[in-house]
């Protein structure tokens, strides 16, 4: 009986802590809803805060691993060097004999544990994120010379609907997904653009 009561006590005391840990603002797996930024009165400040929230996705290993600053992608949540050793090649899709699509399919392979999504490849070097601050990534994302020649509207579309971007939330084989959902990221980037696409100051995280 004593053990039984102790178990009940443990369960009862654990429940509020679990719920609290899952609150959006505290959970590293979640993204804040766009509405929660409405309390920031200044439009520019709101825009900067929205980008900082989006940068949690951009800098997550699931996304940053294929936005390397060098020629070799990383892998894993610890961002270790891709194995087998591969390089980006002229078109960011690998080199002869070692193309990304030589191994990666257009979908995850659960038995072989090889991740996959349509048009699997590295982001161009101009779109490198690893080692960069949210400020630097923001400026990069607004610059057509460094964002794949995209307008801001196209940047929203890319974040919200691109199928390779979508893999970040469907990485397969027990891998940790990027925070939130692609739909939520799309809404945040859309709101960032609508509030002037302001960039957070250097040093802001």
């Amino acid at each position: 009986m004593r053990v039984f009561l102790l178990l009940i006590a443990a369960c009862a005391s654990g429940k509020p802590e679990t719920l609290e840990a899952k609150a959006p603002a505290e959970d590293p797996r979640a993204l804040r809803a766009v509405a929660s930024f409405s309390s920031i009165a200044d439009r520019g400040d709101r825009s900067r805060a929205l980008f900082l929230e989006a940068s949690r996705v951009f800098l997550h290993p699931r996304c940053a691993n294929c936005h390397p600053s060098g020629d070799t992608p990383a892998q894993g949540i610890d961002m270790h060097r891709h194995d087998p050793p591969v390089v980006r090649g002229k078109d960011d899709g690998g080199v002869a004999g070692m193309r990304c699509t030589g191994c990666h399919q257009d979908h995850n392979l659960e038995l072989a544990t090889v991740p996959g999504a349509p048009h699997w490849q590295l982001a161009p070097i101009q779109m490198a994120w690893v080692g960069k601050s949210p400020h630097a990534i923001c400026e990069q994302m607004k610059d057509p010379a460094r964002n794949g020649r995209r307008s801001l509207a196209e940047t929203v579309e890319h974040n919200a609907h691109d199928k390779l971007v979508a893999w970040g939330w469907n990485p397969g084989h027990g891998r940790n997904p990027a925070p939130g959902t692609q739909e939520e990221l799309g809404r945040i980037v859309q709101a960032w653009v609508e509030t002037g696409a302001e960039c957070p100051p250097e040093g802001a995280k």
Partner: protein
Amino acid sequence: MIRLNVNGRTHDVDADPEMPLLWALRDLLGLTGTKYGCGQALCGACTVHLDGEAVRSCVTPISRAAGRKLTTIEGLENRALQDAWCELAVPQCGFCQAGQLMTAAALLAETPQPSDDEIDRSMAGNICRCGTYSRIRAAIKRAAGVK
């Protein structure tokens, strides 16, 4: 039923579209030159060409090969490369060599006269437990006519 064009011949294969191409080649078509190594695209032993691109057949679903030109070691036409392999006695145990040759052929098709760095980058994913790497590189250079 999935129609495969392998080494210029057409085969209708009755199998799950997700079956690894390697299984179909070896178990259904009897083309056993392509080897099973790791099953996870990590060693390169199972490399074949799909429309000229080197792919790891152990992780490539047969549905991806439908309607495309598939080449295995049995159908490799780069004679100069195979002659160089023999002349330099590249293989030791030989298990990985079909994959090595297919990757090397894909490299030479795109870069007929590769540098050492280009060879290393393209061959980096093909593992040889006998350590024949220096002979592999030498044979590629001989086939390419570079020193």
